[in-house]
């Protein structure tokens, strides 16, 4: 494919240079930190699961104890590893005993740091095989039951009840969906833990729990075999429990995760340090587990104006890319997000949209771009809504998008009914099939509206990235650079879970991931 938009290549490199500076500064600020959730994740990766009689997850209970003693800065791996060596208990049994105060991590004799580290590294390598096996399994399944052609049809289920979700997910897959996302209950992102067990009462979505992941994965695996097509499963790796969700997702073989560098900061008022630390570790897990992340740039456009703020989307994509690559994610795991949120009543709005979509496509040629449907300008006119979704699908096939989040004709009314989803799947299949090769057939006028628009956005992006590079991302976020939202550096939820590492801090998984994913900076 020759390039359709004559984008200024130098400007693109410049953007990537600024982004490197930005990432360097962020990393500098977070490199000596861990968080309660990262440490809980270490426990989960070791295989610890379960809740106490009040429903509090064991990882939370253990980490709380360690934190209370101000000993988390050494890393839970040391304390737990030492106890394993000393007590010779199995991981899960020890964990339960610790929660029940039958074992006190700190009153046990303390083995040498080196010994514990080596012990834990071995254990972690052992435990993490579960995840690498999942990677192999996914690969094999995809060979036997190949994915549908791109753009992949991505639909959500959101009933709140995992069993109701199940029916709808299976139906959607059989109707032709390639990807099923189980929308999370509202406000789960603010829970500083992962709920437990199968759940039937979510609100505007269904709780992300390991049991729910497992139920859905098994059901979809069944459908995969029957339909002969691989169906990808998605959940939300964001909020205060971000890395833990990455861990349970990796264990239950989820294929994609919503996982953004800045979403929690901007839209959930989570503290930025907390977010950046959590995000870094969670992405390593996703990288290792072969998960595609979906970034959240689309969210900017539900509040900000898509024409005015188009460059913030591109800027954020550059940042997500750079931060992502640094955690070991490969380009084909970077599902950078954008959205068709432009006011459709604007004359030539479709041209502006095509400019943006094609620009993103060209700048990130290997990324499985995630394209979000119109939501803001949808209203109760379901017929018009269905048409808008069709035009969105058209824009996607015209610009080679990868992950197509299907719009619903009832967007302005309710979370999707079974029939809404079916109509959307039909819509996308129809448009994609009837214009399958259109992107290969069409060129844009030299210096026309489309080309000009793309270059203008790119230009504005370079300017804003320069500005962010100058002042630092954290500073920029605190000044409202993205989505008009200002987040002070020292505020936001979860700040108290951020801990400065001691010199002898240890986390065996970081070591494994850094090694396996060939991450330089760690």
């Amino acid at each position, binding site marked *: 494919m020759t390039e359709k938009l004559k984008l200024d290549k130098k400007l693109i490199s410049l953007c990537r240079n600024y982004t490197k500076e930005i990432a360097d500064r962020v990393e500098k600020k977070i490199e000596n930190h861990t968080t309660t959730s990262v440490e809980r994740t270490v426990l989960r990766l070791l295989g610890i699961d379960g809740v106490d009689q009040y429903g509090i997850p064991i990882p939370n209970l253990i980490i709380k104890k360690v934190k209370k003693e101000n000993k988390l800065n050494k890393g839970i791996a040391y304390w737990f590893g030492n106890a394993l060596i000393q007590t010779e208990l199995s991981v899960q049994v020890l964990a339960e005993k610790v929660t029940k105060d039958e074992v006190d991590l700190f009153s046990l004799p303390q083995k040498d740091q080196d010994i514990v580290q080596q012990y834990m590294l071995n254990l972690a390598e052992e435990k993490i095989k579960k995840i690498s096996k999942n990677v192999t399994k996914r690969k094999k399944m995809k060979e036997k039951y190949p994915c549908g052609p791109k753009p992949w049809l991505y639909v959500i289920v959101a*009933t709140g009840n995992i069993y109701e979700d199940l029916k709808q997910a299976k139906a959607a897959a059989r109707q032709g969906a390639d990807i099923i996302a189980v929308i999370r209950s509202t406000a789960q992102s603010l829970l500083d833990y992962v709920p437990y067990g199968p759940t039937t009462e979510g609100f505007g979505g269904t709780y992300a729990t390991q049991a729910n992941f497992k139920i859905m994965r098994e059901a979809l695996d069944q459908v995969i075999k029957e339909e002969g097509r691989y169906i990808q499963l998605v959940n939300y790796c964001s909020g205060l429990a971000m890395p833990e969700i990455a861990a349970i997702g990796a264990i239950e073989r989820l294929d994609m995760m919503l996982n953004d560098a800045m979403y929690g900061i901007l839209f959930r008022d989570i503290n930025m340090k907390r977010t950046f630390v959590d995000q870094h570790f969670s992405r390593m897990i996703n990288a290792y587990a072969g998960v595609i992340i979906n970034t959240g740039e689309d969210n900017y456009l539900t509040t900000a104006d898509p024409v005015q703020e188009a460059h913030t989307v591109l800027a954020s994509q550059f940042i997500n890319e750079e931060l992502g690559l640094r955690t070991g994610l490969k380009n084909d795991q970077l599902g950078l997000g954008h959205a068709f949120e432009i006011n459709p009543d604007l004359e030539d709005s479709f041209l502006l949209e095509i400019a943006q979509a094609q620009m993103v496509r060209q700048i990130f040629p290997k990324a499985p771009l995630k394209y979000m449907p119109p939501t803001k300008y949808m209203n109760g006119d379901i017929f018009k809504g269905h048409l808008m979704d069709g035009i969105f699908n058209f824009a996607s096939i015209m610009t080679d998008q990868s992950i197509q989040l299907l719009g619903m004709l009832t967007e302005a*009314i309710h979370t999707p009914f079974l029939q809404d989803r079916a109509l959307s799947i039909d819509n996308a299949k129809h448009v994609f099939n009837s214009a399958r090769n259109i992107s290969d057939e069409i060129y844009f006028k030299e210096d026309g509206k489309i080309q000009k628009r793309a270059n203008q956005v790119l230009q504005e992006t370079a300017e804003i990235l320069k500005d962010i590079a100058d002042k630092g991302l954290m500073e920029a976020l605190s000044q409202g650079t993205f989505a008009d939202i200002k987040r002070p550096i020292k505020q936001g939820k979860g700040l108290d879970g951020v801990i400065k590492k001691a010199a002898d801090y240890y986390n065996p998984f970081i070591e494994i991931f850094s090694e396996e994913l060939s991450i330089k900076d760690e």
Partner: protein
Amino acid sequence: MNNRDIIKAYGDTYNDGKVQLSFTLPIERGFQAEEAARIYCLKLGLKEVEVVHMKNLKEGFTFFVVYAVCDLSVDVSKISVAKIDTEEMSYYAVNDYIIEKIKRPLTVIGACTGSDAHTVGLDAILNMKGYAGEYGLERYPQIKTFNLGSQVTNEKLINKSVEVKADAILVSQVVTQKNIHIKNLTEFVEILEAEGLRDEFILILGGPRISHELALELGFDAGFGSGTKPNQVASYLAQKKYDNLKENKGGENIE
């Protein structure tokens, strides 16, 4: 019968009864119009009526989109629908069946009757080319086909059927506005009956708004709706003819 037989509309939760409606009322857009739409639905017995969209169609009309809950249910175990119960066979099987059981080729005649000029559906069943990957009846070595085309009067169709000694008459009706098809089809059967010819022919009706039940009501032997394939009609025809012969209907004996 178990509980699963008592069904209601399904939005996203079992038995939530969610339905979507749209309609136009002759009333100026506004609060009163919205309320009128709501009341209209409430009078129908719908619950939780939500008027989610209202559009001014000008000239004193307003269009509404509504979501509501329909709290009624249907007992599926009590539904019985007339179905065509002959087995569906392939092109080859039908031909073999006719050779083996009926031992002579069949003759069929087809037409779009009355003012109806929609020949595409009938042609799909009758012409060589066929439909949806299935050959049309003309192509069957064991079926002799006459296609009279469009806007054929009932009288002409009957006369021609007698003339060619048709085993079956195929009538297509596509236009249904103001129930014109009912009128036309009723007349058709009445003439046949009046002339004592009803039992001479297998009467097959087809068209996008035709159901087997409607065809039976109107005095036909079978009805075929949207998406019918030629082999379905051929299968029915062959088996029905054989049954008739066994019953000695139409005065012919099986060898």
